[in-house]
């Protein structure tokens, strides 16, 4: 890559934006199809009633809230990671940050729709917003759902800007290469960026502040998501470990998603020269650490429950150990620990393929984890008489599938709109580390006058 001139870099990284391949169109069509199907399923649910889902007494939360937690968790890929790497000033971050931040923005937007999808009366969702309403009633600040509202709100705004700010210079690049309507559009998007030192300095400072701000926000978001559960006196929910447990899990699944996305981009956008094995290697190590951390949390949680041996909690515990949900539980342990750890621990497996594979299982495993946190507890509350069970219907499955496709679709469309690797940052990374002032010899000066 060092062999490439800045000009080549710009060309390479912009290439994916020009032209549409048949494969691309086909893929977009398929994904769009599934998304539309999901929309129809949701419309049907709104029309007929939530009864078309598999929800029932006493399992009032199922796939939808699982998806909610899963996507919010996934969103920790980008902003958090890129922020950490920025602050740590890890030079290898440069090609990674943007694809990471994109994941955040999309995963977060998708996740944020689920609290509305799962409502019994979604057309009244706006009652959750704090505004002086004709009902003379503000929302209940005591409800963790309100905390969610504020946290996700803040997180979404910060991560969107966190993604957009460093794009402005690249928009300018595109503006100067494009013509016709594209030129106009990108002209507008670039806000008239010219690239004066003042603009560069301010941008960098802003990014620095954002990076500092966004990390605690991300942490708070997933803590609050965990409190949606931990605040309720439900067996195995009412636990202090939940917040860190969820945050760790979120970062875990986030990194996995990032690796997966990068592997795919590398393949389909031919970014072999920019997304290098070293990136997967490093992220792989990070994933390994998180996998171990995740297992540590699960172990701690299970151990405390088992040792505590509370009559209320044990049925939930046992149903996940060798009861109704044992199969899913052990599958989760496989996906999140037994498979990824060896792959990531052994150097010669820590290849691009290897890390991608591990990440894939982790993504599945983490979805299962969220499901296993929610459903077994709800179906085994204190009074054995009212125990129940839960099976999703086609509606929930379609909507869930739809969101995965929506993620892919948004990503593909985005890849046509913006270079998925920050061009200027990459270029800036080329020349030697900053703050080593250069002395430029000026022969012409010598012979002046």
């Amino acid at each position, binding site marked *: 890559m060092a062999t490439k001139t800045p000009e080549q870099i710009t060309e390479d990284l912009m290439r994916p934006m020009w032209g549409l391949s048949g494969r691309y169109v086909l893929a977009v069509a398929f994904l769009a199809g599934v998304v539309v199907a999901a929309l129809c399923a949701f419309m049907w649910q709104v029309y007929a009633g939530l009864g078309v889902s598999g929800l029932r007494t006493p399992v009032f939360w199922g796939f939808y809230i699982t998806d909610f937690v899963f996507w919010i968790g996934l969103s920790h890929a980008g902003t958090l990671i890129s922020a950490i790497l920025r602050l740590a000033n890890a030079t290898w971050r440069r090609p990674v940050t943007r694809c990471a931040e994109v994941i955040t923005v999309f995963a977060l937007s998708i996740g944020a729709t689920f609290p509305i999808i799962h409502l019994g009366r979604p057309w009244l969702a706006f009652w959750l917003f704090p505004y002086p309403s004709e009902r*003379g009633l503000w929302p209940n*600040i005591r409800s963790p759902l309100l905390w969610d509202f504020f*946290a996700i709100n803040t997180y979404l705004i910060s991560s969107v800007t966190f993604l957009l*700010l460093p794009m402005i210079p690249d928009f300018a690049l595109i503006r100067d290469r494009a013509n016709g309507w594209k030129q106009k559009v990108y002209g507008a998007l670039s806000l008239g960026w010219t690239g004066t030192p003042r603009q560069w300095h301010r941008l960098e400072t802003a990014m620095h502040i954002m990076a500092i701000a966004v990390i*605690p926000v991300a942490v708070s978001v997933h803590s609050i998501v965990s409190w949606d559960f931990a605040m309720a006196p439900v067996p195995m929910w009412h636990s202090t470990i939940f917040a860190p447990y969820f945050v760790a899990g979120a970062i875990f699944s986030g990194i996995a998603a990032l690796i997966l996305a990068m592997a795919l981009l590398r393949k389909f956008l031919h970014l072999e020269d920019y997304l290098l094995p070293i990136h997967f290697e490093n992220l792989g190590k990070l994933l390994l650490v998180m996998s171990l951390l995740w297992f540590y949390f699960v172990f701690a949680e299970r151990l405390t429950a088992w040792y505590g041996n509370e009559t209320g909690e044990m049925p939930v515990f046992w149903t996940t150990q060798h009861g109704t949900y044992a199969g899913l539980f052990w599958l989760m342990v496989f996906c999140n620990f037994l498979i990824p750890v060896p792959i990531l621990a052994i150097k010669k497996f820590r290849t691009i393929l290897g890390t991608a594979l591990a990440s894939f299982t982790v993504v599945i495993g983490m979805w299962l984890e969220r499901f296993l946190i929610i459903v077994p507890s709800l179906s085994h509350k204190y009074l054995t008489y009212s125990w129940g069970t839960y099976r999703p219907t086609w509606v929930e499955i379609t909507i869930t599938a739809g969101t995965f496709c929506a993620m892919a679709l948004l990503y593909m469309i985005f890849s046509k709109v913006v270079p998925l690797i920050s061009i200027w940052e990459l270029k*800036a990374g080329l020349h030697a580390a900053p703050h080593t002032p250069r002395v430029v010899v000026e022969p012409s000066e010598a012979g002046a006058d």
Partner: protein
Amino acid sequence: MATPYAIYGLFPTPETAERGFNALDRAGVSPSRIIVMASEPFDEYAFSKMDHATPMPYIAALGGIVGGVGGFFLARLTQEAYPIITGGMPLLAAWPTGIVTYELTMLGAVITTIVTLLVTTKLPNWKSKLYDHEVSHGKILIGVIEPSSAMRAEIENRLRGAGAVKVKITGGQS
């Protein structure tokens, strides 16, 4: 407004740009009149050292405080607006209020940061202005706005001398 009257040279590399910058400097052009444009931040070069200092972090912190105070009162007033029966417990729930306050603090900080950025960089500004597409093709633009007609020729020479591949004059009389 039309493009301002200016002379500038386009330099192929940061090194040449640096020379051009120093040359203008030596020619006694006041730094405030010198303009620099590049498609990447050349932090390590003198020509991009200008306008470095900024109070942005402090403004952001201030914004955070404002947001926090706003958050606290939002949480507080909404609870007082509909006083529920708490069975002897305080009407204001401390922890939730804290959470809302925290989130809005961060939001305040983020938003002020963005605003400050836009204001201090005079963005967005779509009006036609001094700019050259060559910049985004890797060239570095070094020039002078509103040079006195006396200086004009000398500036041109110095820019060329420093290694500008092209020297242009825009706007105004020529």
